[in-house]
């Protein structure tokens, strides 16, 4: 199977690539991203292309004629880029990749990275929507993901191509660039103890495993990929040994400004997560992809374990020995 991966330069994209490289059923892999991969890759034909460069992206996709496209060229605001750059990059990447997909005669499957943010967190909404819940995003990140889903559905309309929309819970992990993870690791974390609802997370490794499983599994439509269980922001902060700082109403503005100064911006979708909560019924993904994600509390514990340091032998010591 020939697989094309967009967003390969990101942590998640690179990890998916490594897993696909180890899969004997994959005969050829081509990667596209504006940034080089974060780990060593062995048998991938990588092309560094700006997401805005539609002509080159289309040419590379058509020339490769993939059987499966793994579209992970989706950029969370304040993970790598600021809000506007992330939104524009996500849209440009989706338009060029999914637009070119229609011209690939061998294409059989498209796997798209989305998120549970597409459900939104309106007042009175369910905390654990399943895949049949309406798409009603309440923040810019959710709207970007909903747009990508819409473009993907339009790209496969009237064709035999199977489309899997992986709606991930916020992806967090020891080395994953996530604004939620970065914020929760601050030494003092602003929370709303009286107003907060629980949220679920997914570990970066489970997210990658789900994407690879979706390349092979005959699954169509949306799938919630969510870690079991939930935590509240105050609980997560205390699990990590940080100091929860209660804030209310306008206090969030001050907290967001302070967090930004400390290098952990608090975009609206992360604030929504910490206050309004977020979750999803991931039973279908577990059943159909065969990937059992680790629990949310485990993900939180691993997030904080990253901060621990490990002593390694210095070069001098190694030479002496």
């Amino acid at each position, binding site marked *: 199977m020939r697989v094309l991966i967009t967003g390969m330069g990101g942590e998640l994209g690179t990890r998916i690539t490594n897993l696909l490289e180890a899969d004997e059923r994959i005969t050829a892999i081509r990667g596209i991203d504006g940034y080089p991969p974060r780990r060593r890759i062995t048998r991938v034909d990588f092309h560094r292309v700006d997401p805005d460069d539609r002509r080159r992206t289309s040419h590379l996709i058509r020339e490769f004629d993939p059987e499966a496209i793994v579209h992970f060229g989706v950029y969370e605001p304040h993970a790598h880029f600021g809000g506007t750059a992330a939104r524009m990059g996500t849209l440009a990447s989706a338009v060029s990749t999914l637009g070119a997909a229609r011209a690939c005669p061998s294409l059989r499957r498209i796997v798209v990275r989305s998120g549970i943010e597409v459900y939104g967190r309106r007042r009175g*909404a369910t905390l654990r*929507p*399943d895949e049949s819940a309406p798409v009603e995003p309440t923040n810019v990140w959710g709207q970007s993901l909903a747009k990508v889903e819409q473009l993907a559905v339009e790209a496969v309309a009237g064709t035999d191509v199977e489309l899997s929309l992986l709606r991930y819970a916020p992806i967090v992990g020891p080395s994953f660039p996530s604004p939620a993870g970065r914020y929760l690791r601050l030494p003092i974390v602003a929370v709303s103890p*009286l*107003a907060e609802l*629980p949220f679920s997370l997914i570990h970066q490794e489970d997210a990658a495993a789900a994407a690879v499983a979706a390349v092979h599994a005959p699954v169509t439509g949306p799938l919630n990929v969510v870690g079991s269980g939930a*935590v509240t922001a105050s609980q997560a902060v205390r*699990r990590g040994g940080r100091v929860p700082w209660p804030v209310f109403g306008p206090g969030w503005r001050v907290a967001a400004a302070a967090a930004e100064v400390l290098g952990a911006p608090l975009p609206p979708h992360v604030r929504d997560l910490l206050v309004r909560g977020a979750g999803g019924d991931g039973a279908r993904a577990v059943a159909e992809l065969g990937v059992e994600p680790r629990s949310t509390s485990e993900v939180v514990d691993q997030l904080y374990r990253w901060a621990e340091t490990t002593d390694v032998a210095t070069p001098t010591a190694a030479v002496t020995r």
Partner: protein
Amino acid sequence: MSDLTASTAPGARTLGLLRRRLRGSYDIDDWGLDPELIALAEPFVGARWEVEVDGAHRIPGTGGALLVYNRQVGLSEPWVLAHGVRRTAGRFVRTVGLLDVAPLGPLLRRFGAVVDRDDEVEGLLRAGQVVAVPLSRRVEPGRPGSLDPRRIAAARRAGVPVLPVALVGHEATRRWRVVVGDPIAEAAPPPRGRRARRAAGRSAAGVDVDAPEVATAAAAATAVGRILDDAVPATWWQ
């Protein structure tokens, strides 16, 4: 030895529980229910309401169930029902009707309250939870209120039993009685006609009046009324 001392020392359990709260190492489920917080609040709930439960054995020990209960003002009933069922059947009860406004909404979610939505109710039932839905406050002769048939439809889709529950007591009183009835069998569709539909308990926005859940909702409301009639002691004017 030290573990034994710690576990038998007075207040050790509460101390351990508080320590876990401070460390954040406790569980909250996907809908926000916090079993440890419920355990902490148990003595206070017990001091406010004294609940006697009949028929708790009818509530399944595992798997989902939909409890249909009556209410008057509706402030005490969810607490009474949840407390009674937890104490006698060992199950946590999700009471439908949460007002999703902070700080009340998030706090009540910790005690098992959930929003009144089809997807929330169905998701809980599918996940094997016990969900309690109240009848409407409007009382008609022979019936303690009506039930939205969409809740019955959610129970049917999830394949869980529907149990009528009568709550006998008043907001101001301490003593309450909870009587759990036999599961409601799926009823035949109601006869056509406006009067018949009204008798069937409607408020079925978006539900076909001929759908079996409309009749089952009416049957559930009638069953609650019947249990209430049996449970409430007759007064001198009856």
